[in-house]
């Protein structure tokens, strides 16, 4: 479980997060929905301990990444905002590297890498260097890196950005599969369809605060709109920075 409690973060004069609180439960996909600049990436970076919160705390299974980043990250798979690949390494080498950083060695590492390659169906890519990969192929590699150590928590920052339909479907399938295994999944998006199609719960963010929270249906009921998109616009009061 990921527990975000009254997070506040200020960059110079910009209030990025304003006492943000929500929870992402195990076996559920929680969508962090908000327009560009709502503070989604900042929030996720605080959860995995790359940014320090001014006040409040974010805990993964009770461990605060701001206090103890290494322990907090052990059970965490991350699909970051920017995922650059090491273009001189093959997919297998790359995935194995991150498995190694998570403490998997020897035959355990080999097995984990094989499994995740199998799971994402990237066998034919596995021994190619990643230079020149398409966006969809790069996404799969990044996903493999995030999943190789079978984390109990998964954080994805706008994972479907720049993906075509096929790749998006694969991504969704993988996330659903992970959910079925009881993984706690938190992902940010500004794409309505994706959130509606995938999420069990939606946390709508605007200006660093939670504007509304609930299942997609609850949000629609709350605002009296039949479409999640309209509900979303009503909640944040503007349609700026949202993709349908």
């Amino acid at each position: 479980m990921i527990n975000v409690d009254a997070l506040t973060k200020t960059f110079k004069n910009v209030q990025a997060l304003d006492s943000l609180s929500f929870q992402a439960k195990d076996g559920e996909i929680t969508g962090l929905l908000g327009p560009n600049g709502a503070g989604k990436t900042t929030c996720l970076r605080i959860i995995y301990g790359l940014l320090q919160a001014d006040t409040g705390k974010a805990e993964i299974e009770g461990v605060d990444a701001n206090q103890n980043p290494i322990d907090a990250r052990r059970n965490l798979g991350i699909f970051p905002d920017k995922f650059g690949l090491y273009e001189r390494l093959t997919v297998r080498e790359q995935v194995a590297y991150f498995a190694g950083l998570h403490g998997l060695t020897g035959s355990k590492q080999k097995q984990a890498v094989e499994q995740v390659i199998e799971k994402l169906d990237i066998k034919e890519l596995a021994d190619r260097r990643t230079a020149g990969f398409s966006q969809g192929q790069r996404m799969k590699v990044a996903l493999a890196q995030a999943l190789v150590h079978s984390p109990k928590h998964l954080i994805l920052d706008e994972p479907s950005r720049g993906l075509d339909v096929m790749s998006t479907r694969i991504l969704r399938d993988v996330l659903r599969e992970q959910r079925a295994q009881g993984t706690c999944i938190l992902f940010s998006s500004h794409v309505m369809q994706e959130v509606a199609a995938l999420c069990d719960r939606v946390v709508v963010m605007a200006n660093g605060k939670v504007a509304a929270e609930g299942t997609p249906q609850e949000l629609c009921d709350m605002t009296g709109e039949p479409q999640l998109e309209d509900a979303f616009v009503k909640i944040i009061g503007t349609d700026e920075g949202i993709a349908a």
Partner: protein
Amino acid sequence: MSALTSVWKKEFRDAIRDKRSVLAAMSYAFFGPLLMAVAFFFLITQLTDKADIEITIEGEENAPQLVDFLNERGVVQKQGEWAKTETPIVLTLPENWQESVRKAEPVEVTLRADWSAQKQQTDIKRVEQAVQAYSSQIAAYRLTLRGVDPRVIQPVQLQKQDLATRGSKAALIMGSVLVFIILSVFWSGMNVAIDISAGERERNSLEFLLSQPLSTWDIVTGKALTATTFSLFGAILSLVLIPIIFAYVPLHEIGMNVNFSVGMMALMFILLVPLALFATALQLFVSFRAKNFKEAQTYISFLLIIPMAASFGVEFARLKNPILYYLPLTGQHQAFLSLIRGENVNVMGTVISAIATLAAALLLMKYIARMLKSEKIVFGL
């Protein structure tokens, strides 16, 4: 520890597949000594050069004996035209030469040249000396003929003694070679150091790496060890190639002999190990702050001035201060100088400077590890 070795292994594999990095590490070690050898080759031929001086001699037929004498001394009649950029050096022998010499009267010989021309000065001087020498020779004959000891007109004889010994000449040339060896650890790992820091940021993989469950110290150490490995590889290459290449430079012609023993090379290599780590730490420190590869390269070229200034400065300013033995960089340099001169190495100073270098490197790495926890540095916020 396993995270550290993971980083090291991965970075090493990554770097060794980067042709630019490998080439950079090798080319300095390879072409550097070669270039230096070529430079010395020309320096030596110039120093030992006794080529004939070509001047225009007017009225050659008037004084064939003098012309013969000049030829013997390497001053000959110019065959081609004078270049436009040169002022001709012209020696005019008068028609009355034979008659005047017979009568033992002074003969006026004219030398026309541009004494301010820097390049021609040695030539002009040699012509002057040759004419003077001939004049003294005739004077000696004349005195002998008249039954006078020619030594009466040489009351003072100046003895010139050159104090430049073989060793000190060698030290001058070898001094620049030493600076070169020391710089090799700065050059050879440079490209790798930039690639694994600023490059990692530029490729957008830094954020993901930093959000893995390992300490920034492990990251920095793993990366530093990779770049250090390259830097030491370059150093080994330099150390091996320099004696080989210098075997072909005719150093003996200027009375120099250089001995690179295997033991000496090994000792030099050991002294270079902490320096390589220090060089890498400095480079990582700078390039982790840069936004991209290009920016880091710019900063690092400024950074290279430090070791160059330190070693060349000490070398050419002939600084002698005991503190130099104990500091990083200058300590290694002093030890190398002693080694090459065949003197006793200041053991105490060398050990202390090695420890100081290592300590400085580790402190710098600690600082980089802290830097990587700062959101300001990582995200440029």
